[in-house]
């Protein structure tokens, strides 16, 4: 899923300081799962903003709404009525949701309340970690199911570097060395021969080096 974290309240306050009627829009997908921008977080942000504005002696009108999916035009249409009554939209979705709102409601300022972080998985309750960098040409099949691009601090395709120690990456004891993980998994799979096959320099075009990426599925287009 896509993970995100709320921006500091002060930054959000700054960004909405010139508006009187603010529509706060959450999303029921990824950002709900990572507890950053679901219905609950929309409520907390609304309450926090309301108090901050009251305190500043500049009360505002806050409307809360959480969409099924903010990156999908079909759901975003639902907002039309609420948007009419707002001076600005504060989106609590990932960057894709923010942009979808901006595309659909062209004449309304749309502001991000979250910092979108990465594609990751839950490591344990309350902890999410990066897993995939969306490189467009997946190599997990030869790296034991562990991504060297998203999980090696130097993106090494032929690691490990000389800084790997005790299973940890040289940058921090908090970070596992991806290549240690890859090696351990290849051993468990009885596939250590894969390690010595050098991986060629990567073509970064599918990773975005070829410009903004799209997927077109003819069977689904109208």
């Amino acid at each position, binding site marked *: 899923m896509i993970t995100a974290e709320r921006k*500091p*309240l*002060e930054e959000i306050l700054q960004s909405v300081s010139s508006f009187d009627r603010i529509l706060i829009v959450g999303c029921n997908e990824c950002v709900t799962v990572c507890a950053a921008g679901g219905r*609950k977080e929309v*409520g*907390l942000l609304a*309450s*926090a903003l*309301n*108090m*901050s504005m*009251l*305190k500043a*002696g500049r*009360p505002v009108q806050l409307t809360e709404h959480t969409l099924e999916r903010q990156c999908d035009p079909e759901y975003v249409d639902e907002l039309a009525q609420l948007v009419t009554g707002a001076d600005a939209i504060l989106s609590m979705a990932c960057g894709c949701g923010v942009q979808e709102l901006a595309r659909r409601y062209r004449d309304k300022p749309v502001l991000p309340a979250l910092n979108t972080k990465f594609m990751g998985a839950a490591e344990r309750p309350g902890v999410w970690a990066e897993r995939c960098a969306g490189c467009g040409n997946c190599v997990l099949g030869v790296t034991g199911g562990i991504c060297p691009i998203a999980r090696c601090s130097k993106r090494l395709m032929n690691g490990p570097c000389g800084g790997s120690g005790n299973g940890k990456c040289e940058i921090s004891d908090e970070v596992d060395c991806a290549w240690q993980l890859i090696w351990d998994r290849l051993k468990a799979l009885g596939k250590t021969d894969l390690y010595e096959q050098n991986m060629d320099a990567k073509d970064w075009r599918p990773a975005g080096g070829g410009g903004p990426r799209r997927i077109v599925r003819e069977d689904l287009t109208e």
Partner: protein
Amino acid sequence: MAAPTPELEPVIVAFCCHYCAYTAADQAGAQRLEYPSNVKIVRVPCSGKVDALHMLRAFERGADGVLVAGCLEGDCHFSTGNLRARKKVAQVQRLLEEIGVGPERLELLLVSAGMGSNFARAAREITQKIRALGPSPISEAIAARAMNRA
């Protein structure tokens, strides 16, 4: 912040777990142990069920202090609800800090059902503390707005 106004009693909302804190509060009442009447008790099934939003909304509606009261560690009827409550209280305290409402206005209290006197004492203490802090900036702002409208 305005100087504490002695004639004004602070409003304190206490979310009390049904299995312990609520019973303790009840007992304190039955034993006529004195605890301030400005402490508004809200009975909840478990301290762990008190959502961050409940705590925040209490402040938003003008509470000067909020108490979340649950069972002693290891005694939670739902095993770890009180530990979750501890984490949520800490989360809301961080948020209060960001908003500029003193995080010390929110407290966690762990008591057992038989500790009526402890509950009464804690209620008196938090009342005293909040009284010293004065009204919350939010309750002040609400009052000011009401005045302007009147």
